[in-house]
């Protein structure tokens, strides 16, 4: 277990370094990073200050070391769009809203996907199985940004049941959370279904039935306990998808989160904010992955007692 954990932590750190390296090199893609990091109309002394902050006059590897130092201290520089505001501060101010949305979407996805996944495995080829397959297929084929707009047109513009956009009451949360969560329902449901099918087909389930264990206990204790471990590995990727979903969905619903911030920043060529968002997001995702891995180790005795 300890070995497993140290390995995972090491991989996490490695991934974070890779992210900084990618962002660092992309910032220098154009050849002159100063133009990327500064507004066009920047004054000479601002220019000098930025050159100094990121060490732009130094050779590349020194620049990278300095860059890492700045990232570790949380100094991504000043926003270009909103002069005088620290990029990281802008991100941290809004990350709560994004997490709120992501969590709601996650809960929606799990609450819908687990029962459908379990029942479509238990009642394979039944109506619920076919319905589940259809939901999954649809969920993976609908672009978030489009379904969001269609929802607004139906539920906000025509039916007037829900607010069109913004954040405030729980009613504001429904549409964006469902839009983001739907895609996850599809993937999660399929995973749970196949993991459950595999578990239900195993010898240990046969043995449990031979012991005279009730079918309800066989399914929800013996099979699901094993099947639950498999989709857990997918949670890391799922969180990455939630982030992706949140970016487009926040734009569609004008949700004041990090996604909306970053898209606006891109349009305004506000590179410091963009890189702050990227690195914070990467950090959140990688951390979530780490937590999932630890959970995985705890749930699976084969790893716990490695």
């Amino acid at each position, binding site marked *: 277990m300890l070995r497993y954990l140290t390995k995972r932590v090491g*991989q996490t750190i*490695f*991934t974070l370094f*890779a*992210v900084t390296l*990618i*962002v660092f090199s*992309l*910032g220098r*893609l*154009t050849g002159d990073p100063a133009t*990327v990091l500064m507004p066009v109309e920047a004054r000479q002394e601002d220019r000098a200050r930025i050159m100094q902050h990121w060490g732009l006059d130094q050779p590349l590897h020194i620049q990278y070391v300095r860059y890492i130092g700045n990232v570790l201290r949380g100094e991504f520089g000043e926003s270009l769009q909103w002069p005088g505001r620290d990029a990281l501060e802008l991100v941290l101010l809004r990350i709560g809203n994004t997490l709120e949305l992501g969590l709601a979407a996650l809960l929606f996805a799990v609450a819908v996907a687990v029962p459908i996944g379990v029942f479509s495995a238990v009642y394979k080829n039944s109506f619920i199985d076919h319905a589940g397959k259809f939901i999954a*297929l*649809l969920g*993976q*084929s*609908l*672009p*978030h*940004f*489009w*379904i969001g*707009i*269609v929802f*607004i*047109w139906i539920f906000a*513009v025509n039916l007037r049941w829900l607010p069109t956009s913004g954040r405030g009451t729980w009613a504001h949360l429904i549409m964006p959370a469902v839009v983001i969560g739907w895609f996850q329902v599809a*993937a999660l449901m*399929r*995973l749970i279904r*196949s993991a459950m099918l595999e578990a239900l087909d195993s010898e240990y389930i046969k043995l449990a039935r031979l012991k005279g264990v009730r079918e309800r206990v066989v399914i929800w204790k013996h099979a699901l306990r094993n099947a639950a471990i498999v989709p857990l590995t*997918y949670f*890391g*990727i799922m969180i*990455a*998808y939630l*982030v*992706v979903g949140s*970016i*487009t969905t926040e*734009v*569609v619903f004008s949700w004041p989160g990090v996604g909306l911030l*970053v*898209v606006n*920043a*891109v*349009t305004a*060529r*506000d*590179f410091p904010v*963009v*890189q702050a*968002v*990227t690195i914070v*997001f*990467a950090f959140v*995702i*990688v951390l979530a*992955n780490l937590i999932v891995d630890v959970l995985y180790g705890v749930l699976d005795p084969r790893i716990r007692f490695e």
Partner: protein
Amino acid sequence: MPDASVSAVDGAPTGAAAWWRRVRELPLLPIAIILVVLVIPAIFAESLAPHNPYSGNLRARLQPPAFLGGPSEFWLGTDHQGRDMLSRIIFGSRIAIAVAGAGILIGGFIGTALGLMAGYFRGVTETVVTRLVDVTLSIPAILVALVVAAAIGARFSAVVAIVALVLWAVYARQVRAESLKWAQSDFVARARVAGASHFRIIVRHILPNIANTLIVLSTLQVGFVIVFEGSLSFLGVGIPRPNPAWGLMVADGRIHVVSAWWIAFFPGLAIMLTVLSFNMLGDWLRDRLDPKLTQV
């Protein structure tokens, strides 16, 4: 494993009847949609499109579709610049095909090659490839796209590069797992005993056995790439304006959703139908060719 001593070839009827039966087993609806929405418009865009997709008539702005009482020349209405929606959607299919095709070819080739080597040679190659795959998959590509767009602006080549960047990892992961399995099979051991070279074993023994996986995987990835490109274009970090990318058109329609819903609706419908069809086709292929391939 079943004792399949009876030849599958012997019993099968031949000729036109058998051919027709095989055709009828195909998932005809998805194939038809793919042809009608994607392939035919992309090939014959110039002759099919009734209007110029790039320039519009500002006096004909925000016209509803013809079937909703709009001018009869604009079947699906016009956008905020008075451009014909139908013509733009037709030309948009070319962008979808180009991005999906180029991205899958490049990413698929790199990923398959690295995955094969990782699974067959193991050791350092495998460690490096799997680490890179893990890193690539744990960074959402959309973030990379945002950074790229912020640095150099939206570009077609950047979109293809980013698609390839995600896909290589997806291919490499799947191919590594498969080739690992086959590399440990007894027939590979027998080929080595017979004196076959590493190259021959990879190309003649392992690759043919993962071909089905590659076909299924690629089909399922088309849908992903089209949605992904759409998301990037929608956010303004994908295909640059004024190209008629479907995602861009949805973005244009977003602010007009109250007054002119068709601007966002029809391009999105094109995306949905295409993606749905490819996913259905992929599921069908998976059931036929590779039932063991799990979630992709």
